[in-house]
Every structure is written in C-alpha cells, then in structure tokens.
C-alpha cells in the first residue's frame, strides 16, 4: 500500500478513535472518576500527536513534486 494511502487510512481511523475517547472522557468526568479522566486525556493527547504526524506525512507525500520527464521521452 502506498504511504499516502496508509496515512489516509490512519487519519480516518483516528476520527473514530477520538470520538470514542471523548465519549469515555465525558462519561468519566460526569462520574467524578478523575483518574480515568486524566488517563483518557493522556491517551487522547498521544493519539492526537500521532494524527498530527500522519497529517504532516500525508501532506509531504501528497504535495511532493512529480518526477520530471526526461528529455526525449513522452
């Protein structure tokens, strides 16, 4: 699988992961489970950094200059 496709897949999966993490965090907050809130926030921060890294990787792969055609070839 091309790197660009992998980055795209990771970005799509990360949306689902973050939705679930946010839901669990809110549930823990409403239940006054502070330790669980901190744990989930740490996990979400880690996955957010990974998402940001994937975004940068995708950006570089997407906008990489196409190889130039050599003279004389079509």
């Amino acid at each position, binding site marked *: 699988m091309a790197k660009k496709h992998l980055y795209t897949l990771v970005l799509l999966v990360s949306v689902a992961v973050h939705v679930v993490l946010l839901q669990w965090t809110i549930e823990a*907050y409403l239940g006054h489970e502070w330790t669980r809130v*901190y744990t989930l926030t740490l996990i979400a*921060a880690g996955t957010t950094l990974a998402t940001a890294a994937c975004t940068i990787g995708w950006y570089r792969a997407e906008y990489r200059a196409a190889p130039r055609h050599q003279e004389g070839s079509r």
Partner: protein
Amino acid sequence: MGNKKNVRNQREGKDELVQLVSNVNRADDVDLNRRAFIKATAGMSIALGLATIPFSIRAAIGMEEDDDAKEIIALDELPRGKSATFYYPEESDPALLIHTKSGELLAYNSACTHLMCPVFYESEKEELVCPCHKGYFDLKSGHPTAGPPQRELPRIDVEVRNGVVYAVGRQVRHG
C-alpha cells in the same frame, strides 16, 4: 463562425462542447476535492482529540468535596415509606432521603443521570422514578433498572445522631 466561437467560450450555450461539460462546476472542483476532504478529516480528528483536555483541566482545578456532616431532618419527622428533599454537598445538588418501609435510611442525589430531571420516590413499588423519560432506579443500590439512564444515582452516606439524620459523605460511582 465568429458567433460559434463566442458561444463556445460561454458557460451557457447551445454548442455541443458546452453541453458536454455543462454538469461540471469548476469552482466546486477547486474547493471540494479529495485533498480538502482529507485535510478536513485530519483537522476534525485533532480537534476531537484536543477536546478531552478541558475535562482534565476542570477535574484538576478543584472538584474536592466538603465531607462535613450536614443535618438533613429529624428522624421523627420522616415516617416510614416517606422521603425528604435536601441539598448535598452543594446547594445546587438536590438529594432525596428515603425512609423505607423496612426502616432503612437511604439517600441519593436526585438529579437523574440521564438528563438531570428530578427523581422521585415511589413508595408503593419502593423504587426511584424519573418521570421525564420513564427512568427507573433500584432503591437499594441506586442503579438504573429501566429506561434511558445508564449511570447509578450518586449515593449519599447518612448517619443518625441523637435522632437527627446527617449526610456525611457521597459516592458518585458505587456498586
């Protein structure tokens, strides 16, 4: 011929080439494309991930509760099968003290864990009922038994001292 050339360069026209591409909106193709979708997805994912941080900040700022005993009601004033409303630990936290038919004293915060509607004590069936969306809680444990609530009612620990019932602590998650 000159007319035909002018028609071809216009958005609206009867020229065959214009009709062939009349369903193509170039402006949308520039703005709404695969790259824009992926960028929007990435932005949304990062925003969702960062949205958990305010909850941790709010939790860390100061959610400690005051555990001093708070007087609720004299036991003589609460016959069996009746309930009394009070506020614990804060004035914004309504609670219900129940004197069951068997003589037990139970207390819970009475804000329904679904959408914060007031919960009432149903003495005939000895259960706690939220009339808003027909949520039911078990009287002994405070856990939801039917309806939309998913979390138990916070339990308030009570003590009787010299014939007076006091609230002495709270457990938000229990059982």
